[in-house]
């Protein structure tokens, strides 16, 4: 045991370090830098219209990034999350346009399908103990095939469209795909959904028993089980949460564009993971933040639209993506080293 004076000294260092190891810190710094960069060169970027413009992709990406962040804190990946947004949208539009479903009912059906796929992912991962990377890669490929195969068989093309004519469309569009005017600027209603999802996820993580379990199963699955945490159920619930988010995002997109391409969402799964990692999630699980993932999504939204505002070639977006990922992973490694370092 150390003496009282040595303890005081340790406390001071601890305070500074505690601020430094907040999982969101890297993302906050990154967001400020990226905002300053684009806002400095483009007046449109920092105008209300510009902000509404880049908050829109941030919102749909953010809903997914938050759900994926929870799953990653719980120690698992979901590579099928991106394609599942397409599957949910396709179910919605197909049922509403070809089978006469009311839009709300078609959305409910899409939700059931999405949750069933989430449940299946969760069951396969928890029962077989296979890496979720492999299991959900399988789901990803199967869904990709189903989305294209079924759409082609039904329509002869690679998209389903015509949702605007379906009964109940106007109401559903107002709730999920609409626009709200704030001081003369139109903000997408998806932004509200994104804020709600982030707030709920943060509350669950920090202030509920389930949150404690999520950190625990990701940090050390075996130790969590040993003290009575239902690790399997926790992970299955996380896969279903991701599926729910995919349904929400898929429905938002379908209602907004009234049609869905059969190949939508492919490749997005990695962007969700990258946003979560930039937000402070460790790839190894057990650590991270929902707010961080949301800020990670804001960074992407800003870069995505900012590059357009500056009239740059969109190829630079990919370069930016890679650079952010590497920087974030390096920062996270330092965090983990600190947190796991044993004091002798």
């Amino acid at each position: 045991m150390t003496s009282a004076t040595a303890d005081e000294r340790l406390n001071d260092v601890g305070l500074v370090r505690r601020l430094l190891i907040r999982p969101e810190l890297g993302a906050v710094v990154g967001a400020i830098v990226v905002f300053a960069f684009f806002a400095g060169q483009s007046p449109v970027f920092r105008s209300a219209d510009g902000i509404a413009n880049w908050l829109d992709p941030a919102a749909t990406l953010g809903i997914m990034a938050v759900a994926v962040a929870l799953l990653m804190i719980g120690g698992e990946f979901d590579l099928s999350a991106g394609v599942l947004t397409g599957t949910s949208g396709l179910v919605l539009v197909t049922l509403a346009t070809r089978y006469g479903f009311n839009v709300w009912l078609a959305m409910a059906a899409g939700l059931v399908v999405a949750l069933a796929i989430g449940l299946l992912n969760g069951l396969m991962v928890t029962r077989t103990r296979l890496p979720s990377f492999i299991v959900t890669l399988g789901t990803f490929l199967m869904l990709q095939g189903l989305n294209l195969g079924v759409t082609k068989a039904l329509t002869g093309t690679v998209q389903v469209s015509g949702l605007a004519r379906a009964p109940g469309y106007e109401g559903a569009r107002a709730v999920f795909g609409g626009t709200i005017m704030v001081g003369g600027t139109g903000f997408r209603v998806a932004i509200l959904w994104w804020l709600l999802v982030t707030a709920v996820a943060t509350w669950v993580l920090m202030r509920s028993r389930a949150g404690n379990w999520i950190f625990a199963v990701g940090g050390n699955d075996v130790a969590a089980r040993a003290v009575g945490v239902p690790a399997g159920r926790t992970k299955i619930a996380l896969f279903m949460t991701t599926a729910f988010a995919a349904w929400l995002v898929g429905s938002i997109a379908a209602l907004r564009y009234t049609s869905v391409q059969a190949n939508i969402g492919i490749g997005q799964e990695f962007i969700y993971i990258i946003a979560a990692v930039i937000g402070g999630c460790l790839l190894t699980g057990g650590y991270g933040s929902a707010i961080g993932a949301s800020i990670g999504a804001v960074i992407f939204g800003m870069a995505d639209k900012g590059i357009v505002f500056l009239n740059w070639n969109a190829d630079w977006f990919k370069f930016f993506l890679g650079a952010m990922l590497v920087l974030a992973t390096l920062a996270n490694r330092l965090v983990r080293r600190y947190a796991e370092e044993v004091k002798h």
Partner: protein
Amino acid sequence: MILRTQAIGKSFGSVLALREVSMGVEEGQVTCVLGDNGAGKSTLIKILSGVHRHDTGAYLLDEREVRLAGPREALDRGIATVYQDLAMIPLMSVWRNFFLGSEPRKSFGRFDVATAKRVAREELKAMGIDIRDVDQPVGTLSGGERQSVAIARAVYFGARVLILDEPTSALGVKQAGVVLRYIAAARDRGLGVVFITHNPHHAYPVGDRFLVLNRGTSLGEYGKADVTREELTALMAGGAELDQLAHELRRDA
């Protein structure tokens, strides 16, 4: 006896991991389980803590035969286990670890964070554990401190039997002494302690009964009056094997 096994056994496929082991632990006493690597210590505690089900023999709690469905049931019946390396989750704070699996709740299922922090701080203090800050990640604690927090947790949650899996094996002399002191503190609060170790020098000072395992079976259970530290050491290593080793290692010159 709070907890007792009668000729208990367990096999994994064709491997007989444990055969006919009888042991027990009394209130306010420490039963030490000694044995070399592969002696069956882990299998025994996994049966006691509900991780594995036994195949043969009987497992008695308060002299009534039980079959535990899992670790959760063991905990509910007052049997708490502190594992050697997976007692705690390194990236989580001390207070989150302290209440993991038994979180205090307010209305609407809210995790009562203020209570959790306060109780964790108080309970650690009551066991004489000096943690600077319950918000720090457990990963920043030393090995001995981690074991001590896990013991304090088990005591707080009303454990009647505390099973400790090699709590001192990875520790230095001083740290091991600290952990032995907490074992004695738990015993003095009336808990029955099952202390698994391969170090007779750690077991002898704190133990009341000693079960020696070798190659999956019991070499006998001894009261403290019936065995000396030297006899225990010899028994554990297999006396003849040790003599043979001494012979092989002897310098010829």
